[in-house]
C-alpha cells in the first residue's frame, strides 16, 4: 500500500510495466510473423489473467480462499453459448440473440447474482469450511450444466457464432486478443482503484484482523459480500471472453480442478499484489506449454512444480520482487 510518486517508482513498478508492454507487443508480432499458435496461447493467458485478477480481489485482498471461481468462467461462457444456440435453433425468444451486449450483460448479471446468493451463505463460515462450501457451490453449477441435455450435457456445446458487436468482429484473432488485453488492463485498473479506496482498505483490514475490525465498529460481512459479488462479476466477464475464444464450452471448464488452477495462478504469482495473478497466469500457461512439449505425462511434474512454488515462494513470484524493494528501502 505504498505510494509511488514519479520520482520513486519501484523496481516492481517497472517490472509490471514491462510485463504489460510485452503482452501488448509480443503476441501480435508473433502472429504477424506467422506463429498464430502463440497468439492463441496468449489470448488464453490474458483471459485467465482476468479471472485470476478477479479471484485475487477476494482471495488476496480479502483473505477469503474461494475454491469455486471456475463456476463464474462457466456461467460467463454459457451466457454466450445458450443465447447463440437459441438464435440458431429457436426457442427461448427472450434471450435468443447473437448480440454481444446481451451476452456480456447476461454473463455479468448472472455471475453477480450467483455470487450474491452463494456468497451470502458461504461468508457465514471461515477457513476450511469456506473453502469447502464455495467448492460445493461450484460443483453444483457443474452438475446443473451436466444435467442440461439441451445444451449438450457433459459433451459440451459448440458456439457456432461469436458474440456480435458493432464495428469489430471477434472472429478476427488479433481483434479478440486486443479485446482480451484491453479488458485485462481495465480489470486491473478497477481492482487497483478498489484496493486503495475506503472499501478496499476495509476489506484488507478484515483480512488482517477481523476481530479488531469488528470491535472498531465494522460489519465485515457486508463488505466481504460486496467484494465477493464484484469478484464473481469480473470472473463472469472473463468467462464471456473465454466462450468467444474457445467457441466450445463444456461443464469441464467449471470443474473444481479448474478452480484450483485459478487459485494456483493467484498464489504462484503472489496474492495481494496487483499484477501477481497476471504473472501467475503467465507462469502457469508457459510452464504448461513447455512441459507438454517435453513429455505427455506433463501433469505430474507440473503439479509438483506448482506445489513447490507455493511452498517456497512466500508471496509468490511478485513477492520476490517486492522483498527486494523492501530491502532496498531499508538500506
Amino acid at each position, binding site marked *: 500500500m505504498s505510494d509511488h510518486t514519479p520520482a520513486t517508482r519501484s523496481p516492481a513498478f517497472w517490472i509490471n510495466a514491462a510485463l504489460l508492454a510485452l503482452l501488448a507487443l509480443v503476441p501480435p508480432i508473433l502472429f504477424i510473423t506467422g506463429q498464430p499458435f502463440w497468439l492463441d496461447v496468449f489470448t488464453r493467458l490474458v483471459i485467465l489473467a482476468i479471472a485470476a485478477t478477479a479471484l485475487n480481489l477476494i482471495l488476496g485482498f480479502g483473505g477469503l480462499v474461494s475454491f469455486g471461481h471456475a463456476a463464474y468462467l462457466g456461467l460467463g461462457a454459457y451466457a454466450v453459448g445458450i443465447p447463440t444456440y437459441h438464435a440458431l435453433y429457436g426457442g427461448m425468444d427472450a434471450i435468443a440473440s447473437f448480440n454481444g451486449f446481451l451476452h456480456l450483460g447476461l454473463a455479468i448479471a448472472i455471475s453477480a447474482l450467483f455470487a450474491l446468493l452463494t456468497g451470502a451463505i458461504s461468508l457465514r463460515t471461515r477457513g476450511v469450511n469456506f473453502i469447502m462450501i464455495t467448492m460445493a457451490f461450484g460443483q453444483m453449477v457443474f452438475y446443473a450444466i451436466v444435467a442440461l441435455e439441451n445444451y449438450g450435457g457433459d459433451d459440451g456445446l459448440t458456439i457456432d457464432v461469436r458474440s456480435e458487436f458493432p464495428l469489430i468482429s471477434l472472429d478476427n484473432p488479433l481483434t479478440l486478443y486486443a479485446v482480451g488485453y484491453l479488458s485485462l488492463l481495465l480489470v486491473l485498473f478497477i481492482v487497483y482503484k478498489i484496493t486503495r479506496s*475506503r472499501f478496499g482498505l476495509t476489506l484488507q483490514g478484515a483480512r488482517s484482523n477481523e476481530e479488531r475490525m469488528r*470491535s*472498531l465498529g465494522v460489519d465485515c460481512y457486508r463488505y466481504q459480500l460486496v467484494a465477493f459479488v464484484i469478484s464473481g462479476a469480473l470472473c463472469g466477464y472473463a468467462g464471456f471472453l473465454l466462450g468467444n475464444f474457445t467457441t466450445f464450452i463444456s461443464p469441464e471448464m467449471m470443474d473444481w480442478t479448474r478452480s484450483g488452477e485459478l487459485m494456483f495462478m493467484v498464489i504462484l504469482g503472489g496474492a495481494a499484489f496487483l499484477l501477481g495473478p497476471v504473472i501467475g497466469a503467465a507462469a502457469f500457461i508457459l510452464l504448461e506449454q513447455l512441459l507438454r512439449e517435453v513429455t505427455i505425462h506433463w501433469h505430474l511434474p507440473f503439479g509438483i512444480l506448482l506445489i513447490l512454488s507455493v511452498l517456497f515462494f512466500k508471496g509468490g513470484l511478485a513477492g520476490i520482487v517486492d522483498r527486494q524493494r523492501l530491502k532496498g528501502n531499508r538500506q
Partner: protein
Amino acid sequence: MNTASQQPILKTTDLCKRFGGVFATDNVNLDVLDGEVHALIGPNGAGKTTLISQLSGLLKPDSGRIEFKTRNMTGKPAHKFARAGLARSFQITSLFADMTLLQNVALAVQAHAGHSFNFWRNATLDKKLLDPALSYLETTGLANSAGKQVSEVSHGERRQLEVAMALATEPSLLLLDEPMAGMGSEESNLMINILQKLSGSKTILLIEHDMDAVFTLADRISVLVYGRIIATGKGDEIKANPDVRAAYLGEEANA
C-alpha cells in the same frame, strides 16, 4: 480528580458467563459512572477479560443484561457495541500487523466515520483520515513512529497503538484491558501519563494489575474474584476492605 456526574453510562445486571465448569462471570452487577475512571482489579483468571469481551460484544453472556446509555445492548454483535460508543483495547495486542502505525489508526478513524462503501477515491491519501489519525498518534506519544510498520516498533509502542486505535473511534466509554501488560517501568510511566491526560475528558473502565497505576488513576475500583465482584468503592475503601485484603491485596503483599 474530575467531578463525575454520577450518571451510570454502563450498567450490567446479573451478568453470567460459564466456560464448562468455570464460572468466569458470576452475577456481575457493575455500574460505570459518566466521567469516571473505574478500575477493575482481580487476580489472574478472575474473569476480567471475559467481562470486557462481553461489554464489547465479542462474547455473548449466558444470561443477564448490558445497558449502555440506557439502551439494551444484550446480544448485539460487536460492531453495534462499537458504533454505540464503546471501544476496547486488547490485553493481547491485536493490531493490523501488515500495516504502518498511521494506517492502523487511519483505519480506525475510517471505521468511525460511517460506512466505507466508496470504491473509487484514493483513501490512502485522504486528509480526512490521516489528519485525525496523526493527532491520535500524537496523543499517545507515537507521532515519531507514524510511518513505521507494526513489526518494526517496540512492544511498548504497540501497547500505545492499542490505545490510539480505541481512541480513534471517539468512544464515550473506553475499555482498556491491561494497557501496561508486559511493559517496563519507564514505558509504564509513559502510559500512566497518557491515561492521566485522557482521564480528564474520557470515561474509562481500566483493567490493571499495577496497583500504583490503579490508585493513581482510578476514581472508583471494583474487585473481581472468581467471576464475582466482591467490592466496589473509592481507593481508600478498597484498601481497607477485609474481604479484598484476604482475597487479593493480601496476596500481593505476600508476593
